[in-house]
């Protein structure tokens, strides 16, 4: 038996930093995970929804008479039938000139987008419920509408919400310095109108909801494929007038979200109201057509931006006018400000820039509401800014890497206040840039590109550098006065009488492996074995307030709270053990499930200590005895900067105009890494979605307001053949000043990839003078750009 001295104590194996295999995996791999649609209690009524096929129309009449007599159908509901059952959800905010569009479960009076729920059918099977849909006759009076954001902002545009008096319900400006003067006098300026088109998250599991009403307790349980169970619980408590101890929202295994399941949905309110009304479980599973028509959408930003630089490449000034298409409703709870405001607040990027003005308008259009999707406003802002940087670099004949090197904020300048008021505390901006170049062997890549270009091939290199705020505390809100708290996270840890360790959180893991990573943090801080920790999450009943997992918050906030509560419990355990072992408490430590004295052989297991504390009366003196529990809430107050550089080489096929990615590297500063395998997986997954946004994905509404990309054969997702191997460099530099030293991560790929790929394509086609201003850069778009550039060159 080894003798421990104080130096060897520090070398005990740590879980944080190790590639621990996930505890979630066995059940998911064996096919016994439990997703919402896997549950069908007896007497479940299955819901199907008749959705609007009109972009904007008054509902004149709903005739469901025939539908009721379809075999298997139990009931049919429209908004009028639910008037007394629910109150609307209202996405409040104190923003000036904002209108909080009330959200009802079913369309009242009029419909505002194709796909909006109008009538709900309940039947003994989904098949029967869908049969009934065809027998519902709805008479609409079509109303005028403006489908494009540029048209919807016009003063005389038809209004989607008359009460708002306008379609522009979000309006914000960030400014610093004298940008108009600076641009007017600048030696070099570049300008373009950038368009990032509409996307949707497409989780492979469709949104699914099952509401159960307990008639004994008059209590409701909603099983929801959501990443915000706490937020949904609080909202439904209002909508249904049920106190929080009689309404519970549980997210079981959830098949991805990426933000698409991160808002309150009509159907969630619906299944709850109907389950309570009918006293039977009500289940609704969205199908893929409905998902592509009606789940929240994102990234739809039109950015008119101009950058001024000096002849030596120094950034002088930036101004931008942005129109964000926020769909038909201000989404609950984030409000329609969620994405548009982040576009202008993050546009200056990780650069030194004194003079700036970013204006944004969020405009209502007849489309599903704009909601969270990985990266939120940052993919669009990074696309615009990084394109401008490359355009400026090309104009002055400077290498794009050098251009960034000159302008990225340097270590000695932290904390740096950006022109939009964000604070970069400290992050490895420069090291990520040089790291990505080293990893990719940039000089060799340049030679390869030039050799290929000499052969007439369309090969290009592009990069993007960005910074974002993650792990955000209570100081920063998505929209001022919005009805939720995203800035705190609670960890409640208890060791029970059997010595079992349970840790409950308000987060809601849906693929991020938090059951594993939080257990790693706790094992290190508490001194128990990883396998003895049971992580509970995804359940509004676990903590007094909870929100969920989104905005790259869980490692920082839940990891921080877990650290705090572990330390409190550990202190209690050691205090009890000190008494039991008759050893001074300062001589004790805990590791791998054992409490041991540093200077002797004496040790006890957690189980033995728990048994003594809980089950042996009088073993610990009454006045010293404490339960081995703790509940701590962590608020990092600010956010932490997280940064990265992406570097990519592409080749464009001159026959098909298809883009192949030849090389992709990411250098990321994400602080102290809990599980490198999981971090790599997040980067790879996010880059894949970024590739989708750059090359493949686009939700299209045609001029008649119909969504024409409502299948996976139209809305194209990246496949294994579209995504390359990704070289990843982790820079665990100067750790941030939060508990644990973690930075949030996970969204970086969608933020960095579209910009880097757009730059690479522009570089590849630069001999033709083609610039990418719109994404996705589909073969059709590239073809049109090349053809038009070629014709211009030929004077056609």
């Amino acid at each position, binding site marked *: 038996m080894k003798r421990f001295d104080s130096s060897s104590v520090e070398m005990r194996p740590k879980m944080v930093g190790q590639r621990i295999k996930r505890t979630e995996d066995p059940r998911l791999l064996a*096919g016994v995970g439990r*997703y919402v*649609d896997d549950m069908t209690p007896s007497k479940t009524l299955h819901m199907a929804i008749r959705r609007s096929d009109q972009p904007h129309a008054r509902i004149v009449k709903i005739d469901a008479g025939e539908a009721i007599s379809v075999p298997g159908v139990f009931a049919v509901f429209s908004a009028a039938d639910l008037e007394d059952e629910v109150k609307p959800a209202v996405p409040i905010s104190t923003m000036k000139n904002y209108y909080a569009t009330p959200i009802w479960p079913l369309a009242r009076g009029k419909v505002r987008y194709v796909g909006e729920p109008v009538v709900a059918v309940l039947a003994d099977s989904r098949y029967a419920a869908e049969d009934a849909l065809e027998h519902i006759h709805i008479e609409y009076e079509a109303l005028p509408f403006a489908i494009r954001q540029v048209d919807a902002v016009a003063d005389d545009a038809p209004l989607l919400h008359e009460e708002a008096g306008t379609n522009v319900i979000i309006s914000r400006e960030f400014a610093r310095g004298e940008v108009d003067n600076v641009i007017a006098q600048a030696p070099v300026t570049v300008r373009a109108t950038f368009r990032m088109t509409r996307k949707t998250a497409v989780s*492979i599991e469709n949104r699914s909801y099952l509401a159960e009403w307990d008639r004994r307790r008059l209590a409701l349980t909603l099983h929801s494929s959501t990443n915000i169970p706490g937020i949904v619980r609080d909202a439904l408590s209002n909508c249904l007038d049920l106190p929080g101890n009689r309404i519970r929202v549980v997210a079981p295994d959830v098949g*991805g979200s990426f933000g698409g399941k991160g808002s309150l949905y009509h159907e969630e309110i619906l299944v709850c109201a109907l389950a309570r009304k009918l006293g039977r479980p009500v289940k609704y599973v969205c199908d893929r057509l409905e998902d592509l028509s009606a789940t929240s959408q994102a990234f739809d930003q039109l950015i008119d931006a101009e950058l001024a630089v000096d002849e030596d490449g120094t950034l002088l000034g930036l101004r931008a006018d942005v129109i964000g298409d926020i769909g038909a409703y201000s989404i609950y709870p984030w409000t329609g400000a969620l994405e548009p405001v982040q576009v202008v607040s993050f546009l200056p990027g990780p650069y030194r820039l004194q003079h700036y003005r970013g204006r944004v308008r969020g405009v209502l259009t007849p489309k599903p509401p704009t909601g969270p999707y990985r990266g939120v406003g940052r993919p669009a802002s990074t696309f615009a800014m990084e394109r401008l940087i490359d355009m400026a670099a090309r104009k002055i004949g400077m290498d794009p890497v050098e251009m960034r090197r000159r302008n990225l904020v340097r270590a000695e300048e932290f904390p740096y206040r950006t022109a939009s008021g964000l604070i970069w505390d400290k992050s490895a901006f420069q090291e990520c840039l040089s790291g990505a170049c080293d990893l990719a062997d940039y000089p060799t890549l340049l030679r390869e590109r030039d050799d290929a270009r000499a052969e007439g091939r369309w090969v290009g290199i592009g990069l993007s550098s960005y910074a974002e705020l993650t792990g955000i505390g209570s100081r920063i809100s998505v929209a001022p006065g919005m009805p939720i708290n995203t800035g705190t996270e609670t960890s409640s840890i208890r060791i029970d009488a059997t010595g079992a360790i349970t840790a409950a959180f308000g987060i809601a893991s849906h693929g991020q492996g938090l059951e594993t990573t939080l257990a790693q943090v706790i094992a290190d801080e508490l001194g128990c074995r990883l396998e003895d920790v049971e992580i509970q999450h995804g359940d509004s009943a676990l903590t007094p307030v909870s929100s969920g997992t989104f905005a790259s918050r869980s490692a920082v906030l839940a990891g921080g709270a877990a650290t705090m509560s572990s330390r409190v419990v550990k202190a209690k355990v050691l205090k009890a053990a000190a008494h039991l072992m008759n050893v001074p408490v300062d001589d004790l430590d805990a590791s791998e499930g054992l409490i041991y004295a540093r200077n002797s052989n004496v040790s006890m297991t957690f189980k033995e200590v728990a048994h003594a504390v809980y089950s042996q009366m009088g073993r610990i003196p009454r006045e010293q005895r404490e339960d081995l529990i703790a509940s701590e809430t962590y608020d990092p107050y600010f956010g932490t900067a997280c940064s990265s550089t992406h570097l990519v080489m592409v080749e464009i096929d001159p026959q098909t105009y298809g883009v192949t990615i030849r090389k992709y590297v990411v250098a990321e500063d994400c602080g102290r890494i809990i599980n490198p395998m999981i971090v790599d997986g997040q980067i790879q*997954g996010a880059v894949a*979605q970024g590739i989708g946004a750059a090359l493949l994905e686009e939700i299209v509404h045609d001029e008649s307001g119909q969504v024409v990309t409502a299948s996976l054969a139209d809305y194209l997702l990246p*496949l294994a053949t579209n*995504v390359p*191997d990704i070289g990843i460099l982790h820079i665990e530099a100067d750790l941030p000043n939060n508990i644990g030293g973690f930075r949030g991560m996970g969204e970086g790929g969608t933020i960095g990839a579209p910009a880097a790929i757009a730059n690479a394509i522009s570089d590849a086609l630069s001999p033709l003078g083609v610039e990418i201003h719109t994404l996705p850069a589909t073969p059709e778009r590239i073809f049109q750009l090349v053809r038009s550039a070629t014709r211009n060159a030929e004077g056609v």
Partner: protein
Amino acid sequence: MSKRVSITVSVNGQSYTQLVEPRMLLSDFLRHELGLTGTHVGCEHGVCGACTILLDGRSARSCLTLAVQTDGADIQTVEGLGTIEHLGRVQQAFRDHHGLQCGFCTPGFVMTITDMLLHHSLDTDDEIREALSGNICRCTGYEHIVNAVRELARERASFK
């Protein structure tokens, strides 16, 4: 409602005889009639591959197959490959390489790979990615899945 039809089908080695509507999808039959919810439904139009099972030994989309088409057939689903206590070889490789995040597409991948290992050349990464191109994963970006398949393919090669 159309007349129900009796089918007898073997699933993971166990025989089931049931009455089904002709229009019932195999995916719904497996999930809701037999309670084998490991097979997942992602699109119901044959694109995402989450519903992939083995039908008479070859991979098939259960969302594009009618239950009545499987009368007399032999079906294998992910539940037949292993258990929590004893994961099958493909499942274990996924665990070792972190080839899953939310787990929803995973059963479909595992069944596809089971078929590919038996019937396809997987000597290069390009061949592996091609073999996986009928299954969509939104979480992983595929690289760790490719790593898992590369290991399985090498193992298969060493048995030859």
